[in-house]
């Protein structure tokens, strides 16, 4: 430690840039989560569908998303598609890779949540005279949402952490911005320490918010 002096003032001067980077990080993860959820619903339906084509499309998507590294998919989106002349910006590449993976993981979560609701809940709701739409609206979906809520927050945190791979395609999110700042000033340790703290704070805030929302929204427990 004796031969290293910390120079924090460089980092404080660059704090606005780091914050901009952090904003991009949150931005890309929120967006990839939202789009991921929509696609995941379709994939989950596809995987439960009787139609072979839908089933296979959903299945292939899900398995690729779950069984290849995120970094690989980001490279694929950036340089792989580039070879076909499809040029995605670093932001869009990271975004699409995260969407692809989020959708794959969430589809399985949704399917699991859906199947974990006992069949007897349908019979019970039907026997009260509810039609299909009402059964879903009042009985199945609310229960399902509770079960998938927790896995969904975890997936969101994962997205935030994995967006840090943007550093590898020159995206200007928190990690990329940190990398740029450290290579102009060469204060590696300081910049990455601050970035680590910022990631930690972001994920904690997300989890805290998720907990507060859950406490407000979900009053009954799930058996």
């Amino acid at each position, binding site marked *: *430690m004796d*031969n*290293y002096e910390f120079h924090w003032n460089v980092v404080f001067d660059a704090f606005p840039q780091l914050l901009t980077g952090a904003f991009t990080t949150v931005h890309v993860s929120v967006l990839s989560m939202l789009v991921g959820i929509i696609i995941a619903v379709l994939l989950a339906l596809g995987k439960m569908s009787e139609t072979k084509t839908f089933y296979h499309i959903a299945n292939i998507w899900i*398995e*690729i998303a*779950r*069984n*290849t*590294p*995120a*970094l*690989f998919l980001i*490279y*694929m989106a950036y*340089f*792989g598609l*580039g*070879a*076909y002349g499809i040029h995605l910006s670093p932001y869009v590449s990271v975004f699409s890779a995260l969407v692809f993976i989020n959708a794959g993981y969430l589809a399985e979560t949704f399917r699991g949540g859906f199947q974990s609701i006992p069949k007897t809940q349908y019979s019970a709701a039907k026997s009260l005279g509810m039609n299909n739409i009402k059964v879903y609206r009042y009985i199945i979906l609310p229960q399902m949402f509770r079960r998938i809520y927790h896995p969904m927050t975890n997936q969101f*945190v994962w997205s935030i*952490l*994995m967006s*840090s*791979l943007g*550093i*590898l395609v020159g995206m200007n999110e928190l*990690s990329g911005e*940190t990398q740029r700042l450290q290579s102009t000033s060469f204060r*590696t*340790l300081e910049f*990455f*320490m601050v*970035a*680590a703290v910022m*990631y*930690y704070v972001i*994920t*904690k805030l997300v989890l805290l918010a998720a907990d507060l929302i859950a406490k407000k929204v979900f009053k009954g427990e799930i058996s």
Partner: protein
Amino acid sequence: MNLFTPLSWNDTGFILTGILNTVYISVIAIVVGSLLGLLIGFIRAESNKTVNVCLGAVLDILRSVPLIIQLILFSTFIGVMGFPLPPFFAGSIILSLYTMAFMSEVFRSGFNSVPTTMIKAARSLGMNYLQTVRYIRIPIGMRAVFPSWIGVALSVIKDSALVSVIGYMELLRTAEQLISRTQQPLMILIGVGLFYFMISYPLSRYGKYIERKMEI
């Protein structure tokens, strides 16, 4: 001077090294991470709230900071402290700790899944504390969480790609170098993807199969 040369048979050895390096570091991280995770998971299952909160907070940092940042920070930091390590070791250490953070949760829930009545039954046969741990809690608890263990192990294999940022020549970094030389990203990337898929897919299927078998 020839900057750009196509892929040739010469490169197979190079790619193979990348594959082996990926396998090495993944295996090390999974083994070391599981052993440490088992220990910590056990301590957490057995301890009171204070110990748990403290341990949990430390593990939480490992789970809340991106792996890539942890790797860069750690390898820089140990150098500054005066203990430089080659990328392989620095990468193994961080990846193992990272794995441990997730494995400890897996194992903790494994230990907690063993019903207290079963432990009481074992005690009533005259087994002492360590014997119940050794013969009852570890085997039953570990079985229960085997599918989750596979899940974590697979994510470690995939995350090992990130060790490339501190200069470890694993598969993806090898591929990158070849891409720079050949300017042919598509074929090479597809090959890399296929490799990961071929390792990960059968294992994840196996995990699901076990899970389903256990449900019955």
